[in-house]
């Protein structure tokens, strides 16, 4: 059995797996209601609740929402791409706000939502980091749903109390001091899930906070070999590696939510992870500020890394489908929908004009931080192709797990980020 035929076969299976599901008939007498089949990967508890709020809003606006949920982001995108390539696309597809869908744009497979964007003044309302991804050569190709911040530093207040740490760390030196005290108290200092994407997330936290905005952009956006070989970047790598000495033996392969559970039960002190962990704390009836703390970054000007989700709209010649797509783009970016969605998802709205008072403490802090545009930094996948990003992830996860000289890591990163 050749792998070659296998992989092709699985592509074909992907094509057939995406056959249309039964479509509910439009309600009688009111003319055809816009019907949207929406393909996404939001299947976990909080995510499912969040996507339900989108569906309700779409229904309230007079549309018919038909849900195609596929577990696993990568799997969902694979099915979506197979269906688009096979000429049987869903009405809308979820992607991360990144270059993931730019190949689809290049092939002319997506429709624009320029009218919706102009009518709602996206240019003014969206943060530049989001705008630069959804707007390609002057056309809007995606409707952004939310903003996630992947590099928060979370800590358990109970664990900090037990270790005698009185104050929230405000720099890497203070963070390392806190980690030492946690270890001395017999706790796991850093709760970490040793999977490549999580190792890379920790790296980005160090790069943004210790390296700073300029270095972050030089390395990830410009892929500048001089910056990667600089002393400042070398310090970033060494600090990243130093964090590894604070994880426990069971870390390799651990899921992120199992690491969060270690904070919930105060067996561990600190976790570096995206704001989706709030759903785990909420499930355990813990509240921000009371049971756990959140640090967006160190210092007054710490960058705020922006990641997010967005819907794209596969090209269609059917005016009914186009109408459904326009309505969906309008609804998911409306202020009320944005707020209802983010409360459940743990993210924050993409729009700057939403009242954040109903969000949790950490999200309110985030909204305030985001007002300062100089602190906004796009996530790495905005600059890098999935392939470059993966090659970088391989180098970094290898460095995290093995003893590799830092000079070698610098060289390998230059090679990984080259075209």
């Amino acid at each position, binding site marked *: 059995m050749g792998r070659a035929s296998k992989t*092709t076969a699985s592509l074909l299976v992907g094509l057939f797996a995406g056959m249309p599901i039964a479509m509910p008939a439009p309600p009688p007498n009111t003319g055809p209601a816009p019907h949207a089949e929406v393909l996404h990967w939001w299947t976990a508890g909080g995510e499912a609740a969040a996507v339900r709020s989108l569906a309700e809003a779409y229904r309230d606006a007079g549309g018919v929402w038909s849900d195609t949920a596929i577990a696993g982001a990568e799997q969902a995108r694979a099915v979506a791409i197979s269906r688009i390539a096979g000429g049987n696309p869903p009405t809308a597809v979820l992607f991360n706000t990144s270059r993931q869908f730019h190949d689809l744009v290049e*092939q002319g497979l997506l429709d624009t939502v320029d009218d919706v964007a102009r009518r709602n003044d996206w240019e003014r309302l969206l943060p530049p980091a989001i705008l630069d991804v959804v707007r390609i050569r002057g056309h809007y190709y995606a409707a952004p749903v939310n903003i996630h911040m992947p590099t928060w530093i979370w800590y358990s207040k109970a664990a900090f109390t037990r270790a005698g740490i009185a104050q929230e760390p405000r720099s890497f030196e203070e963070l390392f001091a806190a980690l030492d005290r946690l270890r001395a108290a017999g706790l796991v200092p850093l709760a970490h899930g040793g999977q490549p994407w999580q190792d890379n997330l920790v790296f980005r936290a160090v790069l943004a906070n210790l390296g700073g905005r300029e270095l972050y952009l030089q390395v990830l956006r410009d892929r500048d070999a001089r910056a990667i070989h600089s002393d400042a970047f070398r310090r970033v790598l060494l600090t990243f590696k130093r964090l590894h000495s604070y994880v426990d033996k*069971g870390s390799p392969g651990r899921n992120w939510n199992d690491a969060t559970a270690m904070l919930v039960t105060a067996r561990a002190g600190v976790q570096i992870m995206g704001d989706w962990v709030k759903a785990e704390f909420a499930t355990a009836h813990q509240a921000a500020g009371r049971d756990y703390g959140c640090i967006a970054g160190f210092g007054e000007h710490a960058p705020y890394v922006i990641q997010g989700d967005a819907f794209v709209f596969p090209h269609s010649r059917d005016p009914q489908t186009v109408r459904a797509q326009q309505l969906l783009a309008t609804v998911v970016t409306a202020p009320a929908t944005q707020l209802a969605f983010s409360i459940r998802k743990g993210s924050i709205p993409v729009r700057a004009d939403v009242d954040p008072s109903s969000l949790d403490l950490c999200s309110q802090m985030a909204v305030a931080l985001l007002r300062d545009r100089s602190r906004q930094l796009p996530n790495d996948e905005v600059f890098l192709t999935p392939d470059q990003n993966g090659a970088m992830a391989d180098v970094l996860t290898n460095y995290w797990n093995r003893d590799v000289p830092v000079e070698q890591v610098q060289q390998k990163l230059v090679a990984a980020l080259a075209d």
Partner: protein
Amino acid sequence: MPTARAARSGSWPARLALLPLALTAVVAYLGSILWSLRVSFSASRTFPSDSWVGAAQYLRLFANERWLLSLQNLAVYGVLFVLACLLLGFLLALLIDRQVAGEGVLRAVFLYPYAMSFIASGAVWAWMLNPIQGVEAVGHALGWEAFRFDWIVDPDRVIYAIVIAAVWQAAGLVMALLLAGLRSVDADLWRAARIDGIPTWRIYVSIVIPQLGYSFATAAILLLTAVIKLYDAVVAMTQGGPGTASEVPAKFIMDHLYGRANIALASAASVMLLLTAIALVSPFLYARSRAAARGA
């Protein structure tokens, strides 16, 4: 082979019945292989493109550290897995062959793992091998503080942890194949050897095992194809980690096909894997067809 001969001399209805199978083989398998070959010479990313970049993807593939590590892991895994399965499977078959009491139960016990999906049993293995909640933790809880069994989190040993779990799964199949072989040895041979007073181990070594060549070859082919396909065990147990320490070629292909949106590189890797499979299996197939020709 008798079935092949029947098909050859059979009338047209038999050929017609085989047509769908032949079409599947030609279109689905051969067609897909040619398509992958074409894509591997292009610069395709998310979608196949008509561009032509020659051997560039192959050069990139063999400059890729993770691919080379995947090949090395596959070689280590392949040798250990096949040998351990054959040895263990043979010993189990012997055990059952000698101790006929409870044979039905034992056979079911040894074959059961093979009926389970590795996605499920791999997760259980991952828990058992995890040092803070598995076997090592139990050892510590029982007071054996110095006990260490942390291969699954050790980048230098993780591939052995995967071998253990995979052997547990596949050894039962080898046992079933070899047991059938053992049972097909002519009872008269056993009686004759007994009358001559030949010790049991000597009968096995000199008479029985040489007759099992066919069974061993069949088992080896099945095991080698399982080696090439190795994917689910790694995904379920380590996801390729710690770091990239337990990456294997099939996972490299899947990652590049979807998440990394580089189907050209994934296709180049697939072609390399197909060539490896052909190189590994063809000597066995050749030997078997020679043996069959002699037997006919």
